[in-house]
């Protein structure tokens, strides 16, 4: 399936912020963030390359969303801070301008923990993604909040 019309509008350069909460009792770590959004493979996949920083060190991440039949979504995610070489493969649904996907942790000792990622098209100049730690009891805590506004291009 093609990327939906609104999500396809996200193609371009973005600037925003990243809020990281390592654990519920920990302080929120704020950093600037940038993103480049593109379409891949005959416009069937949405790709979000983003950058943020933690303690002054730059980190990069990549999310690719696949738009399946009957509103089913799949995604892969990598991030130089959050992962150490493994993709996170998530599945979920799209509901209008909101995508929600979830994956269980692959480490055996955390097999009953999960990670939810929500991606939201707000308007042509704004989007956000939020990531949650999902505890074994099903409760969720925000881990990452990123929101972006479109970079201004003078000639457009």
């Amino acid at each position, binding site marked *: 399936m093609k990327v939906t019309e609104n999500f396809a509008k996200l*193609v*371009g*350069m*973005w*600037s925003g912020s990243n809020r990281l909460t390592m654990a519920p009792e920990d302080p929120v770590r*704020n950093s*600037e963030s*940038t*993103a*480049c959004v*593109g*379409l*891949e493979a005959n416009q069937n996949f949405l790709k979000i*390359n983003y*950058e943020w*920083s933690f303690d*002054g*060190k*730059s980190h*990069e991440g990549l999310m690719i969303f696949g738009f399946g039949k009957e509103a089913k979504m799949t995604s892969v995610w990598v991030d130089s801070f959050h992962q150490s070489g493994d993709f996170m493969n998530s599945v979920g649904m799209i509901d209008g301008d909101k995508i929600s996907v979830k994956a269980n942790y692959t480490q055996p000792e955390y097999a009953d923990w999960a990670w939810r990622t929500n991606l939201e098209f707000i308007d042509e100049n704004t989007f956000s993604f939020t990531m949650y730690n999902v505890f074994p009891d099903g409760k969720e805590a925000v881990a990452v909040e990123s929101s972006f506004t479109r*970079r*201004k*291009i*003078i*000639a*457009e």
Partner: protein
Amino acid sequence: LRNKRRNVTVKIMKNSIYPCIWLDGNAKEAADLYCYTFANSAVKSENPMVVIFELNGQKFMGLNGGPIFKPNASISVFVNCESPEEVEKSYLSLGDGGSVLMPLDKYPWSEKYGWVQDKFGVNWQLFYNENDDSEKFSLCLMFTGEQAGRAEGAINFYTKVFDESSIVSISRYGADDHDILGTIKHGMFSLNNHAFRAMDSSGDHKFTFNEGISFVVDCENQTEIDYFWEKLTNGGQESQCGWLKDKFGVSWQIVPKILAELMGDAERSQRVIAAFMKMKKFDIKKLIEA
């Protein structure tokens, strides 16, 4: 300047950024050719190591660095000529003893355009379009090899690092173009009001960014040096004597403005050189104390 962005309280100045061309003992000869080719141009200063020249107000440095590095087509000088005749004259002047990457001709983007590599290895895109009122000289970064497809990220990154920046225009490869769909066909941006261009090219090029052309950032104080060093080495690598490579492989020199004054004193310059040869990031206090 917002504290949250830079974590400093001192205002970052609109730092001058200019290209440095790595040459092999012939920096003055190269500067003379460029000043002969382009009107309103002159050599501003010279010593055995460095020649500073300006082409129509755009500052360049020619560095007699030896045979280690050579400029290549990954960074070219884009010249927005005032007439087709200027394109032709420049093409002949710079092409003498060099080679042609794109022959002088009419192209979809220009009535008269040619890309030559001069005998010193410097690449020039000579362009005329009566509707284009952009700067006469800009530096064009071509993202090839493993960097192909990263031009957009680089534009996004550089225009955040430098305070007085803007993204002027972006065009992407379409379905009819012979490159990766959606990547940057041509992007124009400015960093501290200096004009730059960028493009992706996934073809089988044998060149990528190197030290042959680097960008010098003049800094007023240590805070500015620290800021640019931290931002540009993040994901990249530190080198010697104020040089670094950013995460895209582009070379930068983060240099205190006072260095030129310190080097102007022949007796003192030897001690200053001895001091900065030990440095990666420049330390202004140690340079002054040398």
